[in-house]
């Protein structure tokens, strides 16, 4: 059901228009929400974006295919590996390249570690917005280990630039799999600890149950993907429906929520973290050896044509629509940004709630302004 029409006890009382952001502690970046308030109740919320628009898609048209990869790191700057995975997957599909299994497994490892890191940022900041300060530090402590693993592999912690068209630029340093396994084996215990702080904490439940409810029909209507869609009970995950990169050789479940409120999305993401741990463990066990780069010409020139390829990013379906005119530079490269489309449902989810819930819903949508503004 869509959120109820706002019942206004004093209809002729004058509304207060407040601007949340773009410089605001809880908008996860430069998002501005023009909120019409009747007292504390939200009558209407209008997100205003574009403060971080860097014209990435225009820059794509002036770069070679391998040159665009550092730019994709900066779109969803909390999930650089999955951004790269989407781009290189699309170009490889257009060129008909099959990636050696070892490269594909390394990509799955990097992507799942990135999902863990992105969900960790989400949990830390979401709890911080609702008032619980400590999970932020406990979660970021674990994320430091993931960033160290990335630094050992590709030399950078956030803007990885760690994949190339046709495979991986370099192989895993020795000892990396051991450190990765040690980290991933102890993570479920850490997650259980964070859950003891939040999951059945009565204040956390009061702040998240029945807040920002969106039904499955509305979620599909508003084009939500990723945890917001799964939170409303739709079992939909690109890794299961269109498996890429050997995801079909790895077992994992897709957690779904029951009634699409903030608490269900919280449970879905925490369960997704556990599933990612399972995937990483299986990838480490089945890591094949062999080359990490397919036979791909030094200058990437995909054939004329258009292709759409999408990966399951931590925020939702991240798609790349590439139109190539046969040259070394993409003619047109459009990104289907999961956060941009998820944010569109914000007014729908927030109408009639209180100001504090606006912050909780922005947190549960897990938006990153780099991907929204591109």
């Amino acid at each position, binding site marked *: 059901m869509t959120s109820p029409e706002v019942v206004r006890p004093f209809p002729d009382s004058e509304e207060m228009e407040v601007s949340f952001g773009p410089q605001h502690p809880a908008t996860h970046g430069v998002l501005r929400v023009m909120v019409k308030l009747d007292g504390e109740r939200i009558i209407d919320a209008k997100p205003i974006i574009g403060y971080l628009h860097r014209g990435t898609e225009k820059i794509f048209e002036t770069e070679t295919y*391998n040159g665009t990869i550092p730019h994709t790191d900066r779109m969803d700057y909390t999930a650089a590996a999955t951004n790269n995975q989407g781009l290189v997957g699309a170009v490889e599909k257009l060129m008909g390249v099959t990636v050696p299994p070892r490269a594909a497994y390394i990509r799955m490892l990097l992507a799942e570690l990135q999902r863990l890191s992105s969900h960790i940022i989400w949990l830390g900041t979401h709890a911080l917005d609702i008032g619980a300060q400590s999970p932020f530090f406990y979660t970021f402590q674990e994320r430091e280990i993931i960033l160290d693993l990335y*630094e050992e592999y590709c030399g950078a912690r956030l803007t990885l*630039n760690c994949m190339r068209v046709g495979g991986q630029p370099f192989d895993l340093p020795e000892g990396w799999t051991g450190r990765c396994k040690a980290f991933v084996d102890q993570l479920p215990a850490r997650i259980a600890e964070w859950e003891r702080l939040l999951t059945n904490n009565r204040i956390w439940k009061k702040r998240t149950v029945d807040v920002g409810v969106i039904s499955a029909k509305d979620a599909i209507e508003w084009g939500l993907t990723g945890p917001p869609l799964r939170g409303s009970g739709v079992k939909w995950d690109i890794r299961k429906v269109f498996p890429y990169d050997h995801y079909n050789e790895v077992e994992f479940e897709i957690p779904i929520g029951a009634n699409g409120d903030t608490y269900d999305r919280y449970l879905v993401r925490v369960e997704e973290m556990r599933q990612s741990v399972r995937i990483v463990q299986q990838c480490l066990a089945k890591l094949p050896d062999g080359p990490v780069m397919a036979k791909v010409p030094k200058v990437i020139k995909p054939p004329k044509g258009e292709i759409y390829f999408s990966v399951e990013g931590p925020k939702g379906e991240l798609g790349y629509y590439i139109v190539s005119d046969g040259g070394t530079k993409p003619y047109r490269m459009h990104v289907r940004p999961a956060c941009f489309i998820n944010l569109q449902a914000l007014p729908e989810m927030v109408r009639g709630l209180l100001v504090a819930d606006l912050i909780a819903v922005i947190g549960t949508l897990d938006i990153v302004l780099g991907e929204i503004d591109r």
Partner: protein
Amino acid sequence: MSFWGFLASVFQVDLLQGLSVTGKFFLHRKATIQYPDVKPVPADRFRGMFGFSEERCIVCHNCAKACPIEIIHIADHFEEIEVEGKKKKKKVLDRYDIDVKRCMFCGLCEEACPTEPVAIWLTTKSYESAAYERNERLYFDKKRLQNWDGVEPYPGVVTPEKGQMPNDPSGGAAGKAGEQKS
């Protein structure tokens, strides 16, 4: 709510659980390090400050072409040199500038460099090159890329001038023999 649930909520079991977690961490080993005295150890492949060696550079412009934001400016000219009687034209490097203030340290220039070991590399483990003035201090020309004037090398790392190699940032200090470890 079940009877036990009611009892638990009266005795605030969920709140006490939360308190126990923060209490446990109260005695936990702390994670922060005191930066200026204790420096974090970058990994071997860490993409830090540029290293450049002029004699290995064959002026092929590959790095300038590979750079996504075109911040490597190279100028060269040809010279006639006598090699065993035959006249040979040799490319000489005049200007090799990197506009480090706009660089995003993506490492594509290092990958594009055909020489072995590479002439331009980032695995120098040095990251302390902050500057107060935007344009002057962060625009590295050929000489400065080698003597690192204005860059604080990471302890144990020497500047390219003193023999730093891409995979041996300490410039042979570690392995005394100083041979190139491929």
